[in-house]
C-alpha cells in the first residue's frame, strides 16, 4: 500500500434520494494530519462512519492500511482508533475503568493493559484524575480521556469526528499539541472531520466536501495559492451594485457572496486597488478589507457560497 494510511476511491452513499457522498476520492499519507472540511450536511460524517466500519457504502471502495472496512471490518477496527463527536465514555465509570473496558474489547488484558493505561493517562495528562468518574470531569478533560481511549490499542490511524466541538480555546490548543505528539511519537495518521477553518489550516492536507462531492483536495498552502495573491472584500449595503461597478469601471472580477463583494487579485497588487475602490464607492461601503486568501476563499471559489454562512 506504499505510504497510504487511507485511500478512498469513488465512494458513493445515498440516503433516499439524497446523495450523501458522490464519487468521493481522497488519500491520507502515513504520519499526516488530514482534515475533511465542509459545512454540515456536506457528507463528512457519512464518510467518517463508513471509514469507522459503522456504515456500508453503496459503491466505490475505501482502504485503511490496505484493509477494506466492508469486507474486513475487524482488521480495520484493529488498525483504527476512533474518537466520536458525541462522548462515548461511560459517565458512571472512572477514566481508568473506561480505558480498561475498552482495552478488554480489543483483547488487551493483565499487566500489559495496565501498563498501557498508565502510559496513556500520563501522556494525556489525566493521571491525577484517573480514578474520578467521567461525570465529574470537565468537557476538555473528558475529551482527553476519549482520545486516550482511541489511542489505547496503538492504532495506525486515528479518526476524529469534529474533535473541537465543545472545547474552549485553551483545550483546543491542548488537543492540537496532543495530535501532533501522537503523530510524531506514535507515527499515527490522523483524519479529522471539521467545520472550523482554523483547524483545517493546521493540517497537512485538506479535503473539502460540499454536497457529497470533493470540491478541493490539497495542502492548505497549495489550495490557497490557487486562489491568488490577495482577496479584497467590500462590505456594502447594495453589494450587487458595487460588484457591477467594480466590474464595469475597473474591469475587476467581482462576485457577490452573501452581503459582501469579493474580488480576487491574482497579481497581488490588491493594496494598490484599495485607494481607487475607496474613491469610487466612498460612503456607499462600510468596509474594504485586503487579506491573504484563506480556506474560506477556497471554499467560496469552488462553490460560489460563503462557508461561514453555510456553517451557521
Amino acid at each position: 500500500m506504499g505510504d497510504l494510511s487511507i485511500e478512498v476511491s469513488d465512494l458513493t452513499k445515498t440516503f433516499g434520494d439524497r446523495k450523501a457522498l458522490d464519487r468521493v476520492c481522497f488519500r491520507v499519507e502515513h504520519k499526516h494530519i488530514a482534515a475533511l472540511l465542509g459545512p454540515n450536511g456536506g457528507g463528512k460524517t457519512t464518510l467518517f462512519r463508513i471509514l469507522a466500519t459503522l456504515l456500508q457504502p453503496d459503491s466505490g471502495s475505501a482502504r485503511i492500511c490496505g484493509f477494506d472496512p466492508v469486507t474486513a471490518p475487524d482488521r480495520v477496527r484493529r488498525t483504527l482508533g476512533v474518537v466520536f463527536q458525541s462522548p462515548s465514555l461511560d459517565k458512571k465509570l472512572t477514566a481508568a475503568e473506561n480505558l480498561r473496558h475498552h482495552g478488554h474489547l480489543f483483547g488487551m488484558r493483565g499487566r500489559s493493559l495496565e501498563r498501557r493505561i498508565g502510559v496513556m493517562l500520563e501522556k494525556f495528562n489525566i493521571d491525577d484524575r484517573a480514578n474520578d468518574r467521567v461525570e465529574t470531569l470537565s468537557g476538555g478533560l473528558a475529551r482527553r480521556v476519549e482520545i486516550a481511549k482511541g489511542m489505547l490499542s496503538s492504532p495506525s490511524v486515528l479518526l476524529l469526528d469534529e474533535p473541537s466541538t465543545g472545547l474552549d480555546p485553551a483545550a483546543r490548543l491542548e488537543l492540537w499539541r496532543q495530535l501532533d505528539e501522537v503523530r510524531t511519537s506514535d507515527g499515527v495518521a490522523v483524519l479529522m472531520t471539521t467545520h472550523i477553518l482554523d483547524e483545517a489550516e493546521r493540517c497537512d492536507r485538506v479535503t473539502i466536501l460540499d454536497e457529497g462531492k470533493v470540491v478541493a483536495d490539497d495542502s492548505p498552502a497549495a489550495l490557497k495559492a490557487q486562489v491568488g495573491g490577495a482577496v479584497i472584500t467590500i462590505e456594502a449595503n447594495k453589494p450587487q451594485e458595487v460588484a457591477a461597478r467594480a466590474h464595469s469601471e475597473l474591469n475587476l472580477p467581482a462576485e457577490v457572496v452573501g452581503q459582501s463583494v469579493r474580488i480576487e487579485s491574482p497579481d497581488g497588487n490588491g493594496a494598490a486597488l484599495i485607494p481607487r475602490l475607496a474613491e469610487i464607492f466612498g460612503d456607499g461601503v462600510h468596509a474594504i478589507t485586503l487579506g491573504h486568501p484563506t480556506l474560506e476563499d477556497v471554499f467560496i471559489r469552488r462553490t460560489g457560497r460563503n462557508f461561514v454562512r453555510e456553517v451557521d
Partner: protein
Amino acid sequence: MNTDTSSSVRRAPVSLAVYSMWRRELTRFWRQKSRLIGAVATPLVFWLVLGAGFGRSFNPTGGASDASYLEYFFPGTVVLAVLFTAIYSTISIIEDRQEGFLQGVMVAPVSRGGIVAGKMLGATTLAVVQGVVMLMLAPLIGLPLSFASFCYAIAALFGVALGLSGLGLMIAWSMDSTAGFHAIMNLLLMPMWLLSGAVFPIADAHPILKAIMYANPLTYGVSGFRAGLYHNTAAVSDDGISIIVSVVVTVLFAMFMLFGSIRMANRPNRGGRS
C-alpha cells in the same frame, strides 16, 4: 512499546468482552443507588398492598388452600423483582446507544454477540441477586428455607432472569428511546407476569386465561421457582405443571432468548446507528 501492545491486540477473545460488559453492568448498578432501591421496594410494596388487599377474598381451589395470600403471592413478588431488574438493566442498552457509549463498543474488533451476551449476563446476575435479597424475607412469612430449597430457588431464578434479560434485550436493541419501552412494559411484560400464576393460581382462572397462562413461558418459571422454594419434588405440582416441564420450558426459553439476542446483534449493519 508500540510493538508489544499491538501484538496483544491481534486477538480479541469473546470471553474477555463478555466479562468486561458483565462487570460494567454490575459496577453501574452499584453506583446507581436509586435503581437498587427501586428494584426491591416496588415489588415489596406490591406484595404488601396487593397481598393485604386480596388476602381476604383469596380462596384457591388448589392444594395450597392452607396458605395465606401473602404466602401465595410471595414467590410472584420475587419473580417481579427479578423481572424489574432484568428488564431495566437490559433496556439501559437504549441509554448506551443514546449517550454514545455503544458507538465506541461497535468499533472494537469483537463480536457483537459477545457484547450482548455480556450485557445479558450482567442483567441476569443483578436480577438473581435482587431475587436473593427478596428471598431473605421468606422466614418472615413462616417459610423456612432449607439450603436445598434455597439452591433450587436460585437455579430457577437464574433461568427466569436469563430468559427475561434476553427478551428485554431483543426488544430494546431496535428501540431509539426508553419512552417506547414503557409501553411494551405495560402491554407485554406486566401482563406476562400477571398471567404467570404469580398473582392467582392457574386452577382458578377462566378457561381463556388458563390457555394464555399455559402458553406463557414465565408460568413455567414461576411454577419451577415455587416448587423449588417448597422443595416440592412431587411429579406434578398444584398448577398441573410437572417440575420437569417447568425446567425444560424455562431452560429452552432462556436459551432461545440468549441465542436470539446474539444472533440479532451479529446481523450486519444493526446497532451501528448512534
